[in-house]
């Protein structure tokens, strides 16, 4: 396995229900920015959650491997898995308003992983946090460290969370719709910030989003999901020039173009949906014949 993150044949089920991910395979090279695109419910967030070990209790891994930094996470004991993930990966969450603990000061929430998991000295972690907060353009970082989350604006909190994610120099960051919950004016700044931080630190980034516009700005390559099935993986340049899959083409056509207000909305055509659903059903059929039985 040369890729830093390598997901092999990963299938998830909702306990007693249908598959949420259908034998997904996906590689993220070190330093690469990979977009995960799809409608809501396509399973793009589930991939990020599986990688970070935070799947809901109702979701079960039924097959597959998740290789992170040469280790198959799914073969580790739960406590080892958490430590491995905590030491090599990080999350930039979707909603900055709920992702910081309201009863803890901001500083310890940035430094806790450095001290408790990575064994840094408290003073070093403190200095590192100040440095990172300055790097994400937070004015007066020392004061912000002492604040409680409710004293900061949403954009400010997302900056804190980005600083916190990069603080431990992880090799992989999962950004789960990191701009969706923000004001449009702030969205662009945060997007630029993530891209700049990624470039400077050389971190691999798994960017989960439903917004193809965001993908075109930030990502080097992308995977398109439908119904838990990866229907296409391409470099971004090829994708926007010539999407390979019919569903991808429809998705691209459905993205509103702000430059042309007169253009109508183009929902994904019925025929394309039917075709891609058939593909999903086909994947399930061949999977069952492969020996796995749902009990």
């Amino acid at each position, binding site marked *: 396995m040369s890729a830093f993150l390598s997901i092999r044949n990963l299938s998830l089920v909702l306990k007693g229900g249908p598959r949420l991910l259908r034998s997904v395979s996906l590689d993220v090279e070190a330093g690469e920015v990979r977009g995960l695109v799809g409608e809501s419910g396509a399973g793009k967030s589930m991939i990020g959650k599986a990688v970070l070990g935070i799947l809901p209790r109702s979701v079960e891994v039924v097959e597959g491997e998740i290789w992170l930094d040469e280790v198959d996470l799914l073969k580790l004991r739960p406590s080892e898995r*958490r430590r491995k993930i*905590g030491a090599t990966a990080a999350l930039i969450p979707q909603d900055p308003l709920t992702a910081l*603990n309201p*009863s803890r000061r901001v500083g310890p929430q940035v430094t806790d*992983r450095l001290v408790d*998991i990575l064994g840094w000295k408290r003073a070093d972690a403190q200095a590192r946090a100040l440095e990172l907060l300055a790097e994400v353009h937070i004015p007066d970082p020392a004061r912000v460290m002492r604040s409680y989350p409710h004293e900061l604006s949403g954009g400010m909190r997302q900056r804190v969370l980005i600083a916190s994610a990069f603080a431990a120099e992880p090799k992989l960051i999962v950004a789960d719709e990191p701009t969706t919950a923000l004001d449009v004016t702030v969205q662009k700044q945060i997007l630029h910030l993530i891209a700049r931080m990624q470039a400077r630190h050389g971190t691999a980034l798994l960017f989960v989003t439903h917004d193809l516009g965001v993908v075109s700005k930030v990502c080097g390559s992308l995977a398109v999901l439908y119904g838990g099935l990866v229907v296409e993986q391409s470099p971004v340049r090829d994708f926007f020039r010539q999407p390979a899959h019919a569903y991808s083409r429809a998705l691209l056509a459905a993205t509103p173009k702000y430059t042309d207000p007169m253009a109508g909305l183009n929902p994904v055509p019925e025929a394309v949906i039917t075709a891609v659903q058939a593909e999903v059903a086909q994947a399930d059929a061949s999977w069952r014949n492969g020996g796995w039985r749902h009990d």
Partner: protein
Amino acid sequence: MILRRLLSRLATTLVTLLGVSVIVFVTIRVVPGNPIAMMLPPGATEADIDRLRALYGFDRSIMEQYFIWLWGVVQGDFGTSIQSRQPVLRLVLNRLPATLELSIMALVIAVVIGGFLALTGTRLRGTRTEGAIDVTSGMALSVPDFLWGLVLILLFGVLWPVFHISGRISPQLTSEFTTNFFLFESVVRLRFDLWRDLVSHMFMPALALAIPLAAIISQLLKQSLKETMHLDYVTLSRTKGYGENHVIIREALPNAVLPTLTLVGVQFTFLIGGTVIIERLFSYEGLGNMAIDAVINRDLPLIQGIVILFAVLFTVVNLFVDMLYAVLNPRLRHA
């Protein structure tokens, strides 16, 4: 700002206490039962009765009596007990420490048991253990404290006699103390022999009072912990590499404890009310036991004094909870 809030709180409290005093004063004079008749031997003359009525002021109208009493209270005089002929204030303050120690011990037991069950239930959510905790606390809650008292007496006083079933302390030890805060004093003076004797008396009544409250804490805290466990900052903490115990205690608990705290404050006042019957059951010499005697003897000044003191206690507890809430919730600290 804090001072102003405190002052306005104090004003409300005074009005509340006035209201309470009016209700008590009128009620105990309107219900049947005559304190004078209880004091006199059979065969007392009409003149004797009138003289005694005049002595205690019962010949005046209720309103007059009330203002005489209130004027005394303002000067720190709560009247004289009809039964024991001693100042009400001294009687009541002598008994207060016993009831306070019992209530606080019960509260501590309830918080420890309830907190432990809530944390365990959250850690093992979805397992049989959680189910067992739910069933146990449901049962604990549906049986009132005095019945728990009887059950405990049966278990640990009769079948397996490990605790004392009556009194506050072995009588010969009473002279060892200089204050009435026996438990507190025994700890401060490091007299653990006395402490052990006190606890072996107090444990069962305290536990009986604590069981229903422990059940409430367990259920409510577990519920809010489980809700908190779904929040994003808890998930984020998991991705940092922390184990479940750490996540529950450091991330979820400080936030989940807030709604529980408010309820525990309210419930604690009920618990103090519950001491009346529990103290009777265990012959524990506290305020509650004294209150029952006072009611039986129609000792009107004493009843008034005890009720006012209970009302003061309730307000103090509420005030304390409000302040604690403000301290624990950073969002209120600057408001």
